[in-house]
């Protein structure tokens, strides 16, 4: 069985897998990183979203052989241990969830979006995150949370640049 080297949350992992095995199954079942959720296995619902080199990526349809040399970030490492990312804070503040099953994927998808578009319009968010499903229907709150986080991250980074 071929071995794949995956760089996840800053650490290297040797995985004995077959070509075609998905990143999600390795994360959840072999590395114990259960923050990324299984929702559909089709890349349609976004519950499994992780960052690959900073871009929001559906881990349930991402094959191990495509990940050589790439940096994978999961919800577990979005913020330093014990801290919250501004997006997570905004989700809490707005209560942008009900059951919370889609939340890690939503937060990661939002992080991917904000890294390329620091002040997205409602339309931008709907377009970028349209493949993330909140079955409880908290979409309007999620849009609100992402925009709140965007405003805060922008003011923080502007303040940082001025210093």
């Amino acid at each position: 069985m071929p071995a794949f080297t995956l760089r996840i949350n800053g650490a290297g992992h040797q995985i004995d897998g077959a070509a075609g095995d998905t990143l999600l199954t390795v994360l959840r079942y072999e590395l114990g990183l259960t923050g990324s959720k299984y929702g559909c296995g089709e890349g349609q619902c976004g519950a499994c979203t992780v960052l690959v080199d900073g871009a929001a990526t559906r881990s349930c349809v991402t094959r191990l052989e495509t990940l050589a040399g790439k940096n994978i970030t999961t919800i577990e490492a979005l913020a330093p241990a014990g801290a919250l990312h501004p997006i997570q804070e905004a989700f809490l503040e707005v209560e942008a969830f009900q059951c919370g099953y889609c939340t890690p994927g939503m937060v990661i998808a939002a992080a991917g979006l904000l890294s390329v578009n620091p002040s997205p319009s409602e339309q931008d968010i709907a377009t970028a995150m349209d493949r993330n499903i909140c079955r409880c229907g908290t979409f309007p709150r999620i849009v609100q949370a992402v925009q709140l986080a965007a405003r805060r991250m922008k003011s923080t980074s502007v303040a940082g640049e001025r210093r």
Partner: protein
Amino acid sequence: MSREDLGGIEPERYELGESRRYSFNLDRRDFMRAVGSGLVVVATLPRLAGQESGRGIQGRGETADLAAWLHIDERGQVTVYTGKVEIGQNIRTSLAQTVADELRVPVSSIQMVMADTDLVPFDAGTFGSMSTPRMGRQLSRAAAVAREMLIDTAAADLQADRAALTARDGHVAAASGKSIAYGDLTKGRKLSGSVSGEPPVTPADKWTMRGKPEKKIDGRAFVTGAHQFASDIVRPNMLIGRMVRPDSPGAALDALDTARAAGIPGVSIVRDGDFVGVVAPNERVAKKATVLIVATWRPRTGQPTSETIYEHLKRTADSGGRGGAPYSVGDTTSALAASARTVAESYRIPYIAHVPLEPRAAVAEWTDGKVTVWTGTQRPFGVRSEVAEAFHLPEDRVRVIVPDMGSGYGGKHTGEVAVEAARLAKAAGKPVKLVWTRAEEFTWAYFRPAGVIDVKAAVDARNRIVAWEFDNWNSGNSGIRTPYDIPNQRIQFHQSDSPLRQGSYRGLAATANHYAREMHMDGVARALKVDPVEFRLQHLKDERIAAVLKAVAERIGWPKASAPGRSLGIACGTEKGGYIATAAELSPAPDGFKIERLVAAFECGAIVNPDGLRNQVEGSVVQGLGGALFEAIKFEDGHIVNGSMAQYRVPRFKDVPPIDVVLLDRKDLPSAGAGETPIVCVAPAIGSAARAFGSVQPALPIALARG
């Protein structure tokens, strides 16, 4: 199970009729033994008269025992034990608010132990919007009793006048300023009480912690991914299971070749009749093994399709006469014959799927002949019964634990995944996790029932409806009665044979019945060329419905749309103690129409958690969009044709228009549940607005007739 056995539960909860069992509770003495010392209050509603036969408790829901326990330990820590399940409806938070408010302690000091069958009293399940009006009420009474007991104890300890003592912030305080902490009052004591009569619960206008927004308890664990749903649970030496199934329910196993799969190291194959599953060290290997198994199934044939289902439902109901006697007032036959005008229509409602984002999942572990199952279900005790029955065990050999789960919407009332995981774990001799795939979820769960609803209304010369006939085939009884004041009515539910497995769905048949009723009311108003809001108000005696209708009309700007070319639609109703009116503003679009805006006005008595309630109403409206606009299960011979997330469209970001929620807070009325009713008027509000752009098919999802 016959209708009679279902007692007070709606007949369309078909899935609850699939099994039944008894359940027995710990009594108060047992409970005190378990917790050691402190103060315990047990709240139990007695079983209602006429339900003593003991049969079908599961089917009777909360009309059987409804119990909760409350314990205050020597540190003043309050622990609430309830069989309710947190599904995303935020009941963990609002029940904690309720107890905190009555006990005069901060919400953060309440620990909620929920849905663990070894730790909490029996509960029939979390459904029917009953947690707030029933469990919430029980807990407020139990907490009021506990508070009064603490005051009694403090009065004795302080040798003070009881009337001069007040409970606040975890202490009982005297006018002198002297106070004793709850923990000091319970230390070394065994105080036990129960709820009887009418304890002095706090009226809503004196609430301090209820009636205010409260953040979801443990919200942080959800945004960090740390919360462990059932599908995230890991046990030592756990293996991964996967089922081998036919591609349609009802198929019989003809032949099975497992030779190649059995050759994979670490894989074991479990066959028990038509049950075929594999157990493997990890998910990848489990998947590979199932692919290598060659099973030959004999599918059912001659079944109706998603096109012929409506004729089938009417035909199969004819002979049986199931569904009960009609509700009748006056004489519709002669009223129809004598009327100036009649309007008749037949509405078709397809099967739809719940699509909870967390599919059914279970981890099962056997220890010394006892099995523990972590699973996502709305009925932990029902699942305990199912597992016990499947393995011929006494119920105390089964423990079901439900971690706060990845939603349900009425779709997780049954325990098949728990039984399957337990079967695999038993064979493997190790803990096994089984997570249904999305395809399994679409094919092997149950659906909201399909239905046909025929409505006939007769109008007199003064534009009053004088006769109302309403026949519902198969979707169910909920919301079937009309709230409108009509002198002659005949309303009947006809139960049919369903080719697909069907059961509860958020709001039950109230969604189908409200769609038909409100589209029809709108249709009659249009035929008479009168204003649909005025027309409804003329027929409404129920001031609570009228209040939400007026509120929604005002907020949407009825009768004037906000821009030329746009149209408005409106619908109202009541179900499960909640009152809802929804309005939609539409604009024409190349493929029919676009929803520009939705407004929902909702009233459910005194509001416990305003932001939680708003979230529920918004979510119900969004979920309602799916059934209104695009959800429908397509099938042939029991085979689900569109059973994937790519083919079965549920609402997404782009589908959601601005949603405005108007909450009416009635502090003078008891709190009702809110998880379901706000969904029921979404489709008719949109459907009636769409009539401005063409002929709307009398069906869901809403479509304009071609040509």
